[in-house]
């Protein structure tokens, strides 16, 4: 038989994941010659040989590919035979790196893990052992192309022995960019708070393990930043850490050796276990077990706890020494500021917080916080999409020009999109803080560099005072589209679910607040939406927020705002609410409401949950984002009666738009609060009724306006009870119900939605809404 040749172009995550050595081996095993070459944005493969062998190669490639590789597309061309004698790997050349995909950071693989515990291996007890299947990636990349000299591993030239492994196409470490050994790679050491070195390498880990057992607080440098660690089984260190960080209540994530240890304090379900053990190693929010045996102060007054399994060599070695231990592993940042990434920065900024530092000398090129996932309504949902997932692109159901979305203010991310790919950045944080906003600009710049996408159009929030809004307008000028916050949520939801360009849905957006088209704060919205516009078809009753953002911090203010038209001053005064300045503040708020001094109106769903939490005495001061609503959810889970109360009232708003009367809802809670129901029962009833009321309005709107799909976005969608109830009711009524799958439902999705709006030239409210609805 004649020899034939095929030229293949493979796109996807095919660089830095052992794809070329895999192709090399595959070609050899099928007795093919030719070459494989990295072209920056894809891999080119020439295979020559017998047709049957070519065909079996093509069949095997997608099936046997290395674990981290993701093949998006294979273009196959028949070319003329040129007679290669063998199969070779051709080194990267400078080319176009647009759409090149840098792999995300990945947990140490089983083979590497075995080696670091194998006394006969040269990687024995070496925390930086990696191969093409595992280890840090994105966090090491300074610039493209993704070659060792462009990563932070450039500081560690390979030794002779490593050079052999690195260049051997049959080796597991062939061209694994972060590859190194104890001879040539990074070092680990333990220092005291002043930076004095106490121990090096494995000795440092042994010492750190002792210190943790004794109750010390350590900072530990990882892939994308520093953790602060302490023993989670003892109250003292955890409470001491709370004091030092000024975080009285915010739950800490913990790390445990394996799922067996996890099951001693949490009850992961099937889906939870999948998340927990995946190579992404996210923090997975799990229900606590009945016999929760960690310090109560790890996750106070919540029914759940964020848990992750080890993903670095250092962590594996630490847990090997104390297999039963559970450590708090919280990202090392001061309130509102980005996580610490540099050694000197750790010594300085964590002064008075960490007693010791477990450091290494590999620079972190990209800060990357831990990803947080929670299983909601049986499906995993991103609370934060970061390490392990970034910078893998999200595929769009249509093509866009080069565009940017800059996010909202809190939980912000940035997105760059071009063609069918959208690159959502790592978690950035609250950009109202100067340092975080600077970090936002850095992330943006770096993402432009890595993706080669120079945005032509920009999307930002409608809120005029957001730093991100100013950032976009100062760069994009007249090419900037200000996208209404909740419409951005719904656009993100539509694209997340790969809805085609002519789709329309009824979008429900439930969150804290976002700037509305009418200048008030929205946050409980029913939007009839296409990719080209939206209409506000219904909403929750706008409620006064006395003191603006202060009403978020002190949710009792919301209660007064919502009930002041219904109850007299004497009744209001008897409510079990807390105000930092007591009776005087109570009167001030009452007067403030009457005279409308610094009172904004908001249809926010989050604020209603906050108010219920305050009224029921569950949470009176918000010390971290989402606290009142999270504690309300935990209280509702403890409800024994799960009462079937009907507290929902619908009203007609302007132009017949349905309005959910949340005052009646809260009043119902008030009226039942002196009866046979516990606060937990009423917490359950509030969530249930809010969800049912929302679902009912959605059903009537969708029926009337002819929507087949109804979707839910916004931070309130993290509430399992509310989401499950809305989803169940809608599905029962025959609607297709959509939630987020690939991007967060909180404000982490906003930049993605903004980029889509910018990419499609979406109009704001009204005019283009009907496009695609016929």
């Amino acid at each position, binding site marked *: 038989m004649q020899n034939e040749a095929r030229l293949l172009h493979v796109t996807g995550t095919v660089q830095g994941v052992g794809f070329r050595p895999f192709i090399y081996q595959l070609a050899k095993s099928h007795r093919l010659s030719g070459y494989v070459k990295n072209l920056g944005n894809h891999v080119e493969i020439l295979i020559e040989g017998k047709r049957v062998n070519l065909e079996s190669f093509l069949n095997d490639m997608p099936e046997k590919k290395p674990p981290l590789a993701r093949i998006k597309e294979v273009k196959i061309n028949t070319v003329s035979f040129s007679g290669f004698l063998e199969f070779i790997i051709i080194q990267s050349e400078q080319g176009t790196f647009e759409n090149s995909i840098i792999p995300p950071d990945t947990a140490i693989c089983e083979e590497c893990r075995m080696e670091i515990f194998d006394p006969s291996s040269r990687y024995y007890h070496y925390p930086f052992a990696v191969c093409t299947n595992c280890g840090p990636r994105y966090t090491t990349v300074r610039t493209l192309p993704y070659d060792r000299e462009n990563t932070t591993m450039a500081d560690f030239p390979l030794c002779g022995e490593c050079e052999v492994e690195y260049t051997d196409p049959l080796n597991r470490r062939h061209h694994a960019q972060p590859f190194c050994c104890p001879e040539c790679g990074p070092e680990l050491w333990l220092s005291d708070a002043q930076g004095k070195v106490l121990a090096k390498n494995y000795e440092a880990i042994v010492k750190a393990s002792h210190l943790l057992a004794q109750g010390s607080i350590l900072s530990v440098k990882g892939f994308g930043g520093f953790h602060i660690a302490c023993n989670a089984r003892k109250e003292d260190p955890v409470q001491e850490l709370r004091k030092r960080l000024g975080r009285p209540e915010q739950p800490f994530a913990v790390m445990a050796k394996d799922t067996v240890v996890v099951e001693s304090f949490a009850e992961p379900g099937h889906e939870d276990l999948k998340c927990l053990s995946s190579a992404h190693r996210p923090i997975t929010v799990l229900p606590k077990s009945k016999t929760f045996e960690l310090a109560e102060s790890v996750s106070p007054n919540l029914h759940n706890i964020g848990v992750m399994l080890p993903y670095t060599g250092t962590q594996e070695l630490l847990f090997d020494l104390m297999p039963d231990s559970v450590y708090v592993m919280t990202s090392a940042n001061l309130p509102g500021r980005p996580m610490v990434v540099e050694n000197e920065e750790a010594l300085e900024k964590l002064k008075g917080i960490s007693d010791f530092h477990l450091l290494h000398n590999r620079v972190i090129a990209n800060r990357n916080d831990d990803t947080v996932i929670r299983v909601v309504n049986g499906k995993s949902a991103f609370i934060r999409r970061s390490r392990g997932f970034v910078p893998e692109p999200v595929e769009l159901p249509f093509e866009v020009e080069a565009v940017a979305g800059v996010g909202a203010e809190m939980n912000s991310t940035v997105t760059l999109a071009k063609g069918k790919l959208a690159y959502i950045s790592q978690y950035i944080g609250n950009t109202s803080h100067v340092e975080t906003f600077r970090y936002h600009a850095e992330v943006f710049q770096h993402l432009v560099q890595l993706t080669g996408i120079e945005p032509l159009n920009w999307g930002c929030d409608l*809120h005029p005072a957001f730093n991100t809004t100013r950032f976009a307008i100062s760069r994009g000028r007249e090419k900037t589209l200000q996208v209404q916050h909740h419409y951005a949520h719904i656009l993100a939801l539509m694209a997340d679910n790969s809805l085609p360009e002519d789709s329309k849905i009824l979008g429900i957006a439930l969150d*804290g607040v976002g700037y509305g088209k009418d200048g008030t704060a929205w946050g409980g919205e029913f939007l009839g939406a296409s990719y080209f516009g939206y209409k506000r078809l219904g909403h929750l009753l706008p409620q006064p927020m006395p003191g603006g953002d202060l009403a978020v911090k002190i949710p009792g203010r919301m209660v007064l705002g919502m009930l002041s038209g219904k109850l007299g001053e004497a009744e209001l005064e008897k409510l079990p609410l807390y105000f930092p300045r007591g009776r005087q503040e109570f009167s001030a708020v009452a*007067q403030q409401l009457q*005279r409308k001094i610094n009172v904004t109106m908001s249809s926010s769903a989050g604020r209603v949950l906050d108010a219920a939490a305050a009224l029921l005495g569950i949470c009176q001061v918000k010390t971290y984002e989402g606290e009142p609503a999270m504690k309300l959810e935990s209280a509702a889970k403890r409800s024994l009666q799960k009462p079937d109360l009907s507290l929902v009232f619908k009203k007609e708003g302007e132009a017949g738009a349905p309005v959910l009367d949340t005052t009646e809802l809260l009043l119902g809670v008030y009226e039942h609060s002196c009866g046979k129901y516990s606060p937990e029962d009423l917490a359950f009833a509030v969530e249930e009724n809010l969800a049912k009321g929302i679902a009912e309005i959605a059903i009537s709107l969708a029926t009337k306006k002819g929507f087949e799909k109804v979707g839910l976005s916004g931070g309130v969608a993290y509430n399992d009870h509310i989401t499950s109830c809305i989803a169940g009711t809608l599905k029962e009524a025959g609607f297709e119900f959509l939630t987020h799958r690939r991007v967060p439902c909180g404000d982490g999705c906003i930049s993605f939605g903004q980029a889509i709006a910018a990419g499609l030239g979406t109009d704001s409210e009204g005019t283009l809404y009907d496009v695609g609805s016929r």
Partner: protein
Amino acid sequence: MKANTISLEHGAGGEVMQALIGEIILKNFRNKSAGSIGLENLDDGSTIRLENFNPASELVLTTDSHVITPAFFPDTNIGRLAVSGTINDLTVMGAKPLALTCAVIVPEGFPILDFEEIIKTMDETATEVGVPIITGDTKTVEKTALDSIILNTAGLGITDSPIRDSGLKPGDKLLVTGTIGDHGISLMAHREGFDFDTDLASDSAPLWKLIEPVLKLRTPEGTPVITAMKDPTRGGLANALNEMAAKAGAGILLEEDLIPFKPAVTAACEMLGLDPLEVANEGKAVIGVKAGFEEEALSLLRQHPYGKDAALIGEVTAENKGEVILRNRFGGMRYVDIPAGDPIPRVC
């Protein structure tokens, strides 16, 4: 968004007013300058250079209209506000006040006794700093056209080294002459019936005597120690500092703990969710001084009763051009924005 009619926001001192001034007033007046500082500098006043006059000296002219409801408030009234405002505008230009004018628009039905009390207060305030009121004008309008009194005062001053609000340089120290937010909070408490059980009063005061000694301070090279000065009236310290930073092309870093507030102002702001930096002051100045002279300037200020709470609040930086940053005691930093008309919640 361009409006077709004037709204209250157009006079509220924020970005909307800036746009009105920039796009309508400055565009249509063609001759806007009579000396080194003209209308387009949008300073607190402008200078007039006279021929056959000491070339180092310039006259400074400023004008201000005052509408305030109610016209009488704790301890004083609109008369003190009108005179202080104009004297202070001259003062922060570095000019010694020479003379004032007084124009009154008053609706029919306004009590004569009240009118007289306002005039007497104007006299007392001007006498405090020894400035004569030398000309004026009185108009009455129908009840339906106006519900309270409007005062306009113009002031003429003289200086041989005008101080501009754009003169900040990196390294300069920023001082305030006293507690911040007193006027706005006391007036709101009085007007809206808040019971903060305090004796908070407006800080309205003419500042010439307070500032005069500091204006005389010179560096060993003979240049004025004061580099820039402004009275943080409408829009408060936030507005004044943003303007100063923008005009100077420099950054401002404030230390939250150093800014002096009366406990009652802090309490009121904490209970109403207001930012005291955005609250109006009528008897305060913010002063930029060359580094190394802040202590001397402060001790001069503190010798005067209006300056007893004077404080160093921050410094001018080369980085963060045009931005005002507030640092709290834990090192956290946030931007101090130009106040919008109404604050809009941002917590999602």
